[in-house]
């Protein structure tokens, strides 16, 4: 069971965060829905779960504040949107108990982690506790293995999960994805193969991945490692360097240099610019070295592109489904 819940950690700074923009998602504390290296953490999680044979059933409980999730590409996944995600999750757990399931994974999307599922379930069975929580060096992660009978307990499901005593220490890569810096780190780690967050494209030469429909005009150069997403255009005389990822439907115009940056889905970057150490999304620019986020209303410099990629891929009908891979080990 995957729970996609908004965190609202920055709600104090804005009364009504918009769930339709990246900035809105950041305010909702949900970086997992942002397309990174061709696919969001959330979409990868669903893909991995549906591709794992030992998992009988995958369901998603989506926070009503988050963008609608179209599951037509994954018909086996039951999606329910609710304002009280934990209440609905408890209902589903009760239902799973009646259906005779003996072990349920509950994952609240947020962090990206690489965990050996078989080992985790073996650990849970060996300990014999009702709830086992996955932990890393920094503490508990929002990933539990539970016996469905806990649904009959009177406590709130979240409280029951938070009070789990059994802790399974994850051995693989973990990124809590709770800031712009962590989001960027995940991209760099994916490009430098430090984790299994692989770019969703073809490796056209060592360290350079290009997805379907990506266009590299004459004179444009990519210094590895780098990722060029679906339907991206890199114009003449551009230089894409130092772990840069250009996500689907974006356009980097003539002569621009992009260094150590992520250009998120559907973003136009103007002519002759120097973009470095940044995350660009539509009219917003987050500069990681200067620790500043600014809105650039000048469409000559940056802008949101119109069309199918202007949505956040990975949580829209355009979210990419590739060949399901095994759960990363």
């Amino acid at each position: 069971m995957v729970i996609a819940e908004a965190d609202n950690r920055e709600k104090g700074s804005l009364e009504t965060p918009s769930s339709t923009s990246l900035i809105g998602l950041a305010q909702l504390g949900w970086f997992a829905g942002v397309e990174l290296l061709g696919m969001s953490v959330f979409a990868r999680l669903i893909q991995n779960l549906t591709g794992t044979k030992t998992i009988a059933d995958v369901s998603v409980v989506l926070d009503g504040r988050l963008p609608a999730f179209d599951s037509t590409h994954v018909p086996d996944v039951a999606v329910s949107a609710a304002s009280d995600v934990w209440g609905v999750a408890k209902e589903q757990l009760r239902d799973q108990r009646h259906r005779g399931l003996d072990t349920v994974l509950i994952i609240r999307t947020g962090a990206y982690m690489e965990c050996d599922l078989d080992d985790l379930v073996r650990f849970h069975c060996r300990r014999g506790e009702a709830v086992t929580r996955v932990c890393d060096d920094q503490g508990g992660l929002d990933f539990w293995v539970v016996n469905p009978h806990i649904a009959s307990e009177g406590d709130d499901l979240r409280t029951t999960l938070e009070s789990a005593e059994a802790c399974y220490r994850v051995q693989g890569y973990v990124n809590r994805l709770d800031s712009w810096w962590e989001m960027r780190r995940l991209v760099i780690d994916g490009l430098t193969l430090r984790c299994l967050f692989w770019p969703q494209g073809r490796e056209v030469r060592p360290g350079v991945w290009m997805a379907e429909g990506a266009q590299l005009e004459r004179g444009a150069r990519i210094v590895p490692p780098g990722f060029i997403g679906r339907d991206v255009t890199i114009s003449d005389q551009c230089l894409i360097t130092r772990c840069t990822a250009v996500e689907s439907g974006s356009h980097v115009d003539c002569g621009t240099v992009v260094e150590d940056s992520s250009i998120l889905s559907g973003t136009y970057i103007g002519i002759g610019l120097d973009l470095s150490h940044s995350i660009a999304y539509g009219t917003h620019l987050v500069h990681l070295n200067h620790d500043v986020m600014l809105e650039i209303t000048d469409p000559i410099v940056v802008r949101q592109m119109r069309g199918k990629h202007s949505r956040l891929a990975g949580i829209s009908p355009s979210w990419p489904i590739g060949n399901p891979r095994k759960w990363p080990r």
Partner: protein
Amino acid sequence: MLSSGPVVVIQVPEQFIRRKTRDFVQELRGFIESNRPRIVLDCSQVRSIDSAGVQALLHCLEETLKRDGDLKLASLSAEAEVILELTRVARIFETFSTSDDAVRSFGAISLTDLPRDVPSYSAAFEALRALKEAS
């Protein structure tokens, strides 16, 4: 002999965008058109700057250099710094962390550097002027 006027420190508006740049350049024109203008633009208040703002800065620098003067930037806000770096303009300007540093770089003394007990020479100048007129 060439002579220089005082160093002028001017605050750049918070929203340095298209509709504000014309007024700003107009305001600056008087200083720019003086002999060997020495101008410091304090960018500490800048929160937003667009391509017209960047163009205005470049125009002011160009006009100042034409008159054998110089225009320097000081106290760049993070927002201004990001935009100037993004548009590759940062390298063209000489920038300083404070306006006082920028003023000093012209070889001038900042008002804040003047000791409080400095003697006033204005009376002596008045007397000299009177003497000149009399002669």
